């Protein structure tokens, strides 16, 4: 049996286990281990596991994840996310679709302190859904706005997805995070425009607009919450941009900053701090498990030369870079529909990477593209984690309604992908201009 066949069989087994609810870390690790055992024997399996488990835990880069997660958790526990929403609502009230835009805006703002899309969706979801439904927004537009707004969590830095991608492709985490800034702002605007335009084309999406009048005094006083986020964002990204911090140090400063902010605002109780830390521990545990699984799988794919087989096949058909790009994006949209997005990225990157490098695409830029297609995956049926989370925290929003509303927001994401293909500078301008 050719070694490549073994590689393909391993992939097949990984997918089968995954779809039968085996935790994805284990679904990758077990078939990969069997593959190693078959091809190279027990000694190699032992050495490979030894090396992988040790190097991935004795890791400076991975430290970034618990620190950023803790930062987002503390900001949530400090009640800042609530106030953010109030601030955006106050400023956007009176606009057509203003409350929906406020949902997007506060999601984007919260995303600047949180590295996770699911956390962003869950956090903003509870408040936003209540207010939007009360203001007469249709359930689908409400659900779609929140789920889509939540996806900004991994595009606007910090972002655990960028960190995982950076670890797998050996790209600078700092550069990747900074590459997300402008696309993040653009996508926020695109989402807002989407709400505005759709509410004009289909007025019955917003049945009645009983948004109450807001005074200018209320507007300005509600701005206070945003200041905290600005401070954190400046420490974290400013620190990285101006060369004061590495990505890990910025995360440490951010977590410390969030902690101090919580104390200053006197909103952090011991119970809330504990909750934030326990959430962080869980996240660390499952992300580490996935990283281990991914690297074991990665090793099998490497020695079986599956990535080469695939890239040779594709290149022998004389594809142009543009066609290749279209194929890759389509593949990710398809996979994103049915797969958990984190596992999608860790399984596919080793296969896709040689292709991307051969065509000469910039790997920082491609990281942004990956995050955008992952965002689509998060809100596309049937497996859309953001929609699941929203459905979990807001029971009156049904899953089908959320998915229906989310489809609308795939359009602006896709538009940004195309825009980035034409103007890569949108992503690359900031990371390549660092001090």
């Amino acid at each position, binding site marked *: 049996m050719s070694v490549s066949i073994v590689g393909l069989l391993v992939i097949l087994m990984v997918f089968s286990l995954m779809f039968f609810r085996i935790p994805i870390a284990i679904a990758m690790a077990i078939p990969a281990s069997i593959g190693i055992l078959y091809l*190279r024997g027990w*000694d190699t399996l032992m*050495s490979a596991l030894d090396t992988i488990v040790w190097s991935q835990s004795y890791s400076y880069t991975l430290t970034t994840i618990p620190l950023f997660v803790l930062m987002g958790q503390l900001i949530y526990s400090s009640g800042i996310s609530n106030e953010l929403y109030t601030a955006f609502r106050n400023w956007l009230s009176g606009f057509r679709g203003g409350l929906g835009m406020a949902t997007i805006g506060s999601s984007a703002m919260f995303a600047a302190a949180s590295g996770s899309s699911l956390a962003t969706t869950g956090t903003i979801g509870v408040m936003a859904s209540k207010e939007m439904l009360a203001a007469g927004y249709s359930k689908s537009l409400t659900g779609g706005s929140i789920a889509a707004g939540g996806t900004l969590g991994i595009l606007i830095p910090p972002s655990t997805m960028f960190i995982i991608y950076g670890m797998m492709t050996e790209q600078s985490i700092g550069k990747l995070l900074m590459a997300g800034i402008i696309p993040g702002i653009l996508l926020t605007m695109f989402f807002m425009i989407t709400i505005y335009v759709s509410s004009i084309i289909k007025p019955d999406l917003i049945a009645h607009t009983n948004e109450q009048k807001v005074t200018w005094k209320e507007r300005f006083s509600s701005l206070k919450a945003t200041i905290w986020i600005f401070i954190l964002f400046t420490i974290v990204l400013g620190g990285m941009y*101006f060369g004061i911090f590495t990505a890990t140090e910025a995360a440490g400063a951010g977590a410390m900053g969030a902690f101090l902010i919580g104390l200053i605002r006197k909103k952090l109780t011991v119970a809330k701090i504990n909750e934030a830390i326990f959430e962080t521990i869980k996240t660390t545990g499952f992300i580490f498990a996935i990283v281990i699984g991914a690297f074991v799988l990665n*090793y099998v794919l*490497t020695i079986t030369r599956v990535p080469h087989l695939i890239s040779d096949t594709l290149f022998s058909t004389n594809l142009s870079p543009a066609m290749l790009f279209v194929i890759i994006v389509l593949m990710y949209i398809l996979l994103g529909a049915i797969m958990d997005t984190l596992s999608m990225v860790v399984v596919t990157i080793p296969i896709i990477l040689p292709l991307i490098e051969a065509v000469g695409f910039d790997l920082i830029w491609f990281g942004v593209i990956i995050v955008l297609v992952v965002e689509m995956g998060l809100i596309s049926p049937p497996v859309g984690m953001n929609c699941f989370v929203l459905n979990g925290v807001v029971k009156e929003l049904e899953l089908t309604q959320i998915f229906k509303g989310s489809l609308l927001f795939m359009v602006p994401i896709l538009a940004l992908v195309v825009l980035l293909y034409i103007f890569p500078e949108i992503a690359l301008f900031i990371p390549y201009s660092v*001090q």
Partner: protein
Amino acid sequence: ACGKTEGASSSAQSDKVFELNYNNLAPPTHPYTKNVSEPWAEFVEKETNGRVKIHVFPSSQLGTPDTGYDDVSGGVFDVGLLYASSDKNDILFPLSIGDLPFAIPNPDVAVSVMNKFYDKFMKDKFQDAVWLGASSTDTAQLYTTSPIETVEDIKKRKISNSLYSRNELIKSWGAVPVSSSNSELYESIERGIVDDVIYNTTGAIGFNLNEVAPNMTKLDLGVSSNGLFVNGNIFNQMPEDLQTLFKEKLGPKHQELMAELYMAQMEKSIQEFENRVKDKGGKVITPDEEELNKFKEPAKKMWDEWVKEANKKGHPGEEMMEFFKKSLEEEGVVIPF
């Protein structure tokens, strides 16, 4: 354990094809890949009449230098260069003598001295991996953001370093050693996280360090020595004639390619560096002997430390050092202390 063998058309041992995975630490476009690992793979296949096939995996796909010995002895990869000073496995420690600052000036000397050292002290040390010969990269230099002429100039500066064993030296200059990974090196200088970098000449050009650290102080700090190893299990499965071929012809060929590349590259790279920084206010500084000795002096402590460390680990430290110095002298190298 089963070696992965395939394509055996008959049961005769001599017809068996051995496929070996070569872990190449350099990227696909690196001169090392183009001039050493790939030509060597072709050479092996030709010399063995196709009985041994080498698959080269660039960009450390099969493992990083810190786990090299464990990886090759466990069969994570079958062939590759190991670096004693970077390897977390203590078994390679005696070979780290080749990395002492201001010891081995170039790859030719490395091959000759370190092979002798291996024969004398290390011959029966490795059970799970087989030694195919010593080699090295070119010598390291100091790359700086502002010109460094004297030891005084270097005080308080933050210096990044690819070889941890040099950190003591950096400290004794009054500077601060900073650890940063290779992938973050360029950025670290660019953003002022570090001021200067100690790096081997070819690598510095490869990373475009000249763009951010346009000055070079030519200290000839010494090479990074390495050794080519093959997995013991698969080696022992080979028929005797192949084993002999590996030891007598294929291993030495690898050394030869390494020395050819890095000897030539060393000269060329310094020239290339000078050309690149000429118009940008940068320069190559060669300290006179008196000044150079001031840079070298503190290294004596490290040589002594090495002996102590070796004794602590149960090796004949003094004897090893004595032999090492004698071999260096035989190559015409002047021991700085």
